[in-house]
């Protein structure tokens, strides 16, 4: 049995917590926006899609810096949150989750939008003729039929969040026990003499977590698509 140090445990725990919270909090927004982008036409639609995809192409440091100047203690949203709600993202694990969510959001929304576009609108028509209103059609037909895409989007966002480095370190730094995740911890150990062994241990743990997450999502896919067999 491997004995984990306090620092390692906290990095593993924080990584999982941040990735999970980032993905879960993004999910409802991604489903709603994915539906809107897939089904509705509106003014400046392409602009909004590009804007949300921006973190995919920008250097992560830039995204982190932009987060810092908006959500930091002196940023215009950060200052507002601190003054009125006594809440801040700066140098907290919540900030790391925000950075991860922003970085993973384009991947999540892309998968969900695609899967909603794939649904034949005829099923929704049929549901309406059976007496279902719009909301019920969405809940009982659209959502379940797009579930594979939702799971894929969630997995991608979660994976992106686990590996997120640049934006996190720029926005909330690398504070052990608060914002230090597996990736920032590995980077940290590589900077100190004789830290390589620790870095390798954490690398192996990262690989283990990532593979487990991917296998889990494959299992869920299988379950979801059982009706096609």
């Amino acid at each position, binding site marked *: 049995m491997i004995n984990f140090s306090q620092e390692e445990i906290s990095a593993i725990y924080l990584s999982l917590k941040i990735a999970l919270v980032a993905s879960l909090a993004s999910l409802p927004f991604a489903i709603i926006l994915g539906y809107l982008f897939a089904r509705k036409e509106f003014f400046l639609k392409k602009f909004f899609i590009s804007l949300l995809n921006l973190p995919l192409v920008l250097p992560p440091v830039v995204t982190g810096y932009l987060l810092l100047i908006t959500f930091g203690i002196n940023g215009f949203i950060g200052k507002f949150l601190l003054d009125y709600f006594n809440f801040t993202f700066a140098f907290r694990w919540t900030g790391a989750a925000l950075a991860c969510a922003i970085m993973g959001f384009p991947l999540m929304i892309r998968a969900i939008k695609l899967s909603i576009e794939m649904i034949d609108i005829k*099923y929704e*028509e049929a*549901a309406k*003729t*059976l*007496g279902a209103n719009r909301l019920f059609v969405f809940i009982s037909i659209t959502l379940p039929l797009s*579930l594979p895409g939702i799971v894929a989007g969630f997995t991608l966002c979660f994976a992106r969040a686990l590996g997120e480095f640049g934006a996190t370190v720029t926005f909330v730094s690398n504070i052990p026990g608060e914002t230090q995740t597996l990736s920032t911890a590995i980077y940290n150990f590589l900077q100190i003499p004789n830290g390589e062994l620790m870095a390798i241990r954490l690398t192996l743990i990262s690989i283990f977590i990532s593979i487990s997450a991917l296998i889990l999502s494959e299992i869920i896919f299988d379950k979801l698509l059982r009706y096609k*067999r």
Partner: protein
Amino acid sequence: MKNIISIKTKISNFAIDVNIDLKEGINCFFGPSGAGKTSIINCVAGIKRAKESKIIINNNILEDTTKGILVPIHKRNIGYVFQDSRLFPHLNIKNNLLYGLKLNYRKNEKFNYDEIINLLGLDHLIHRFPYNLSGGEKQRVAIGRALLAQPDLLLMDEPLASLDQEKKDELIKYIGKINEILNIPAIYVSHSISETFTLGASIHFINNGNLIYSGNRDKAINFYNKSKNFLFRDSYIIGKVIKINSLEGLTEIKLGKEKLTVFSNTLDLDQKVIVKIRSTDIIISKVIPDKLSSLNYIKTNIVDVVFEKELICLILNFEKNLIKALLTKKSYKKLNIKKGTYCYAIIKALNINDVTNISLV
């Protein structure tokens, strides 16, 4: 009970202008592909919007453009069986069937779950998913699902279109069974005339977005048989099976006082059947030839002679039935016949192979 469909609209340069008064039972909309039949029922279901419309089903006004009334799809109470069945792939058969039932549980029950399952033979399917059902089974489930939503009107858009002949006959039997408990009007869209005459209690001929003729089955058959429209070339006659000789494979069908012998082994005694007679299969003779193999010689009266390019179409009458016979101009001249002449229509028993049982409907 008032059931009126009045639609005037244009769908990408194709004009539809119909006034249809629905009758009890199955109303068949017959017409060639692209005649506007599906567009009409899509307007009734609310899936398509018409420019000018007045749709009243079961005394409820669903659409009235003059009054600005437009009831949304889910409040119309109209069951729709689509050509491609559209069963929800993620739900098993039971949940597909229950989908509309659960949403309409407050309404008084017109169709009972157990009864529908029983009539449509769905019992062994309910735990399966649509993915591994055959085309015919899917359509049966779709019919059940639509009925269990307790609709005021049932729409069926060519439900047999994607099935092979054997499955078509099977599904027609199931639709016949449903017809016995059908306490609401139904619209059945088809471009097959034999399906139309088999299932329709009332028949509405639609072409180019217009209603050409509406009437009950007997009248519609008569209209069809005497129509000079080139589309309607074959004739249909309703009769009753009176004698079966299974050794020789022959069945006798009574048509008024006349009898028709057909080569068929699939019919039962006393069944009401509809017989299709192709106009090209009829030989016209002024006398009964004594050395001819054919088994059928029907005495008829020529009621009309229609010239169609190089062919002649004779419209023949016997006992209130009309049949059409196609001749070449040469044969016509040779026989020296005209309107009012009596002659014999000779048909080989082997050529009459489209006989459908309609006792169920």
